[in-house]
């Protein structure tokens, strides 16, 4: 059931998206859909070796080809633009848009060509001859930490990007010195059971369906640069582009038109973006670059690739005493904008939803000859929750305890909120047992277990897996990203015709903000949604912003919008008051009218107040004409949504193929603005979590450093037939940290689903003595376990 957008209470309704009519008719406007007069096309020549020193680059053949306007090597570009920016506080090696001297991963750009069309550009890029003296490559982070066989950046001994950084119990947060480990040691000494396991959250390729793309147009006449980009955050892109090009913020305009998914991979500003801007400025002509999928596999950021040595101490009754994680993050060959920060989020998750007295996380980040990692849907939280939830399931198996019961015994209780974890995180709100009970009831947990046991008795390898997640999101206080800030901006204008135009600094690329934000404003002003326009994704039209990532848009962007709207409402009351001979404080909005609270229909029409505000004769005292307000909003803390997922799998004994048969979920993201959109976010999140568990793994060859899974021929993102129908429900525990009571839902499905599936697979093979299986759950891996070999 969907409902038409009509005035009335819209927040909480399954309103169809306003974005969709253009998109279903093929009338969207993505970066590659645009053509500008005189536009030239870029193509990059890339390294086909993982590690080496560039001896020479012969561009003569390319330069002689028809339609080729310009060829630049990395060395030439290094004279035009400085190395790329990072937004983390850790030391980072120089990372050039196009490498001037040395290549450190397969696909790293070494030269760029500019040609009159895309086909000719491809031909010319192909005609550039690069001579590289090959160096040994290292793709295993634990091996890389020995500095052998390669040191990737001379200044980073043993390839340590971020050397051991401890956090949690016994660690001084200011100095990162380990000062007092007695609580940690005591917990492990007192424990009846200790679980120790090496667990990998493997490397993934984000694969938004729209590859990256950029059009840069520098206008020499007024020294202004306009960049159309497949970005999730045009304002951050503007800041970084301006900085690298040495231009003022006011000279750079970044536009995110329709953007075909991001999942974190489009937070970064990439080398190709800086190069396009620099070349457009040099030539005074617009240039376009569109990424191929093959390039996307090699050179758009990867996600995850965090290894955990987990130790978990518990009593015989299943009370968890302490959790210790030693993390090794393989961040690839360079640091991108947030690369080094992402693994630190793993540490934030170490307590999960459990009341654990002692935690400790030690993190090391390592360079390898791979594409850099950065934020990919969940970004640190899927890793942390996966490590913990695997450990808890191992504990349940060891104690022969129902995994639901074990979790229940350790939950943080509702009365403990706001709850501060042993690692110093402050959780806003939670009622975990209610979500667990809802999931168990919806799944028919006891019956599922009985059915599983009956199937096992027939020799079928059926397994059940449960997981419980929370996540840090709604980013967040600016202290969490001091380089750019983490507030959000909104403006709301009521025009003289009574129509509302609102801008938001978050930048939707599939999230449906044009709909959800209009729902909110329609309710606030009590006018039809059709009278409201939401503008986003253009720094020329949206005064400020941070962007869409970290499940923050509704929480931070939505609240900023609400604040701006309430400022406009206050002003409208001031204009309406003299019209009605009432006090502003007595007036409310309802049914398209502004009038005395409870009898708004006796007041004046919304549109009449708007008209009056622009021709206010007489002008009310202490009031400026017009109706346009803005708001910046920064949350005081993070929001912590949560939920429970239950998976049922069956493994084919002959082949090791795993079928996901049932997926039951209960999510709690606080208040819901549009259940249809929230469901879509959860579905998509689950699918990506299923992908990590079952079908996705970026594999580099140990010797050559080549990316083996470099196309959709080798790297399987889930298809429709790989997924069951999802059985979903929700509970509502509002966040006290924002007036909407919302928490964020963009990443939840991805975080919670992965461990539930792996837990189910381990359960299915428990009869073979299996306690843990590393992802992805390759059929051959499972088949080997069934054969009694090692995974």
């Amino acid at each position, binding site marked *: 059931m969907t409902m038409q957008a009509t005035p009335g209470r819209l927040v909480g309704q399954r309103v169809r998206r306003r974005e969709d009519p253009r998109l279903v008719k093929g009338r969207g406007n993505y970066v590659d859909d645009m053509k500008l007069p005189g536009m030239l096309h870029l193509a990059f020549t890339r390294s086909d070796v993982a590690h080496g020193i560039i001896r020479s680059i012969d561009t003569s053949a390319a330069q002689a080809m028809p339609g080729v306007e310009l060829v630049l090597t990395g060395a030439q570009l290094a004279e035009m633009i400085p190395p790329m920016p990072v937004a983390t506080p850790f030391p980072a090696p120089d990372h050039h848009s196009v490498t001037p001297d040395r290549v450190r991963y397969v696909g790293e750009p070494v030269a760029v060509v500019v040609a009159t069309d*895309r*086909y000719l550009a*491809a*031909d010319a890029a*192909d005609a550039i001859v690069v001579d590289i003296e090959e160096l040994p490559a290292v793709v295993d982070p634990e091996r890389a930490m020995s500095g052998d066989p390669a040191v990737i950046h001379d200044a980073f001994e043993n390839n340590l990007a971020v050397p051991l950084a401890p956090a949690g119990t016994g660690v001084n947060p200011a100095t990162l010195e380990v000062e007092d480990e007695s609580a940690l040691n005591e917990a492990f000494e007192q424990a009846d059971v200790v679980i120790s396991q090496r667990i990998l959250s493997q490397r993934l390729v984000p694969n938004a369906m729209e590859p990256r793309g950029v059009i840069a147009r520098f206008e020499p006449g007024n020294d202004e640069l306009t960049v159309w980009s497949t970005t999730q955050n045009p304002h951050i892109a503007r800041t970084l582009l301006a900085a690298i090009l040495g231009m003022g913020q006011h000279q750079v305009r970044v536009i995110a038109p329709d953007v075909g998914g991001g999942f974190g991979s489009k937070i970064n500003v990439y080398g190709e973006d800086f190069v396009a801007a620099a070349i457009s400025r040099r030539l005074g002509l617009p240039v376009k670059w569109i990424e*191929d*999928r*093959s390039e996307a596999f090699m050179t758009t950021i990867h996600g995850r690739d965090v290894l955990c040595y987990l130790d978990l101490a518990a009593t015989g009754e299943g009370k968890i005493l302490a959790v210790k994680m030693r993390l090794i993050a393989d961040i690839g060959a360079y640091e991108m904008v947030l690369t080094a920060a992402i693994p630190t989020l793993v540490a934030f998750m170490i307590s999960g939803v459990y009341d654990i007295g002692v935690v400790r996380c030690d993190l090391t980040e390592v360079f390898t000859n791979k594409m850099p990692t950065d934020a990919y849907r969940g970004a640190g939280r899927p890793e942390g929750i996966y490590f913990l939830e695997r450990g808890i399931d191992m504990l349940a198996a060891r104690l022969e305890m129902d995994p639901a019961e074990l979790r229940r015994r350790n939950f943080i209780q509702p009365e403990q909120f706001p709850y501060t974890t042993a690692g110093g995180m402050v959780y806003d709100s939670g009622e975990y047992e209610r979500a667990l009970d809802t999931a168990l009831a919806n799944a028919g947990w006891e019956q599922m277990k009985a059915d599983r046991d009956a199937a096992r008795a027939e020799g079928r390898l059926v397994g059940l897996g449960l997981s419980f997640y929370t996540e840090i999101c709604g980013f967040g206080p600016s202290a969490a990203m001091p380089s750019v800030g983490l507030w959000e901006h909104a403006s709301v204008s009521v025009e003289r015709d009574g129509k509302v135009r609102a801008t938001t600094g978050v930048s939707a690329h599939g999230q449906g903000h044009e709909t959800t934000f209009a729902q909110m404003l329609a309710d606030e002003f009590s006018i039809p949604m059709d009278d409201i326009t939401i503008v986003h994704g253009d720094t020329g039209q949206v005064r400020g912003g941070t962007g869409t990532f970290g499940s923050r848009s509704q929480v931070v962007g939505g609240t900023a919008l609400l604040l701006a709207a309430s400022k406009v409402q206050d002003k409208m009351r001031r204009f309406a008051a003299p019209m009605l001979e009432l006090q502003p404080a007595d007036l409310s909005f309802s049914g398209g009218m502004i009038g005395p609270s409870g009898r708004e229909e006796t007041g004046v029409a919304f549109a009449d107040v708007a008209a009056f505000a622009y021709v206010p004769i007489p002008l009310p005292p202490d009031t400026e004409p017009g109706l346009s307000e803005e708001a910046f909003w920064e949350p005081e803390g993070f929001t912590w949504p949560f939920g429970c997922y239950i998976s049922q799998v069956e493994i084919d004994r*002959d*082949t090791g*193929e795993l079928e996901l048969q049932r997926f039951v979920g209960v999510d709690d993201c606080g208040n819901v603005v549009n259940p249809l959109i929230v469901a879509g976010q959860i579905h998509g999140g689950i699918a990506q979590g299923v992908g990590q568990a079952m*079908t996705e793994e970026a*594999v580099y060859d140990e010797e050559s450093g080549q990316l*083996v*899974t470099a196309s*959709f*021929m*080798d*790297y*399987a993102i889930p298809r429709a037939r*790989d997924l069951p129908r999802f059985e979903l429900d929700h509970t509502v525990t509002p966040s006290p940290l924002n007036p909407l009571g919302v928490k964020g839902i963009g990443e939840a499905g991805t975080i919670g689903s992965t461990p539930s599936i792996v837990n189910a697979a381990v359960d299915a093979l428990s009869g073979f003595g299996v306690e843990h299986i590393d992802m992805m759950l390759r*059929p*051959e891996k499972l*088949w*080997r376990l069934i054969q009694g070999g090692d995974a």
Partner: protein
Amino acid sequence: MIPSAFEYRRAGSVDEAIALKREAGSAARFIAGGHSLIPLMKLRLSEPSVLIDIGRVPGLSGVSEDGGRISIGALTTHADLESDPLLLAVAPIVAEAAGEIGDQQVRNRGTIGGSLAHADPAADLPAVVVALDAAIHIAGADGPRAVAASDFFRGLFEVDLGEDELITAVSFDRPSRAAYAKLRHPASHFAIVGVAAALTVEEGVCTGARVAVTGASTHARRLSAVEEALTGSRLDDDSIAQASAAASELGDVNADLAGSEEYRRAMTRAFTGRAIAAAASR
């Protein structure tokens, strides 16, 4: 994503196609549906200087039967095979295997002739035509010839097809009981292992068997030890398991991320069993 430049010729007949190919030389390629060739050209793994389009040559499309012999034109698409009423009635193995190829869009454009000529080691139809003891009909400057499918596939992307030759049709006798079983690659949908089995059964006893595997090694090939073990058996669970075990005697076996040599051997065994069981139950 962008193929290298080439010249384009369109053939109106088989003879014209052969003449154009002779004229263009060894750097020329035929193209029909293009679903093997174009992906390679886009990645510049194949850079022919001339493409000769045989996609419109009349008379090379469709399925027919003459005296128990079924003939399939080389330009017949996988989608046409999948839904062909004659095949569904008398040789469902072909329709089923075709239906397992790629996806609907690929099946709508890809042709049986193209698939066989390209001979991807993981393609489905090669195993099927070998198991059916099909004849591959070939036209060339020296006139037409036919070669047994089991002799046609020779090695990795290597077939018994001269430079100036093209496949015009595939023919085989109406099979008695035949089935195809496949372990799909989760990403590409090609066969990690695919096994086709064609059995003759008289009074509950298998009197003849042809079993062929694809995906396991360089090219589709017969599993003779399996065939021998099946012949004379009653096709019950035990005898099928026993015969399938003989599938392990494959020579060199492919190994990649989707399956090690050991796994592919085991899967060849498993899917041999599944194909035989499915064929036997027809």
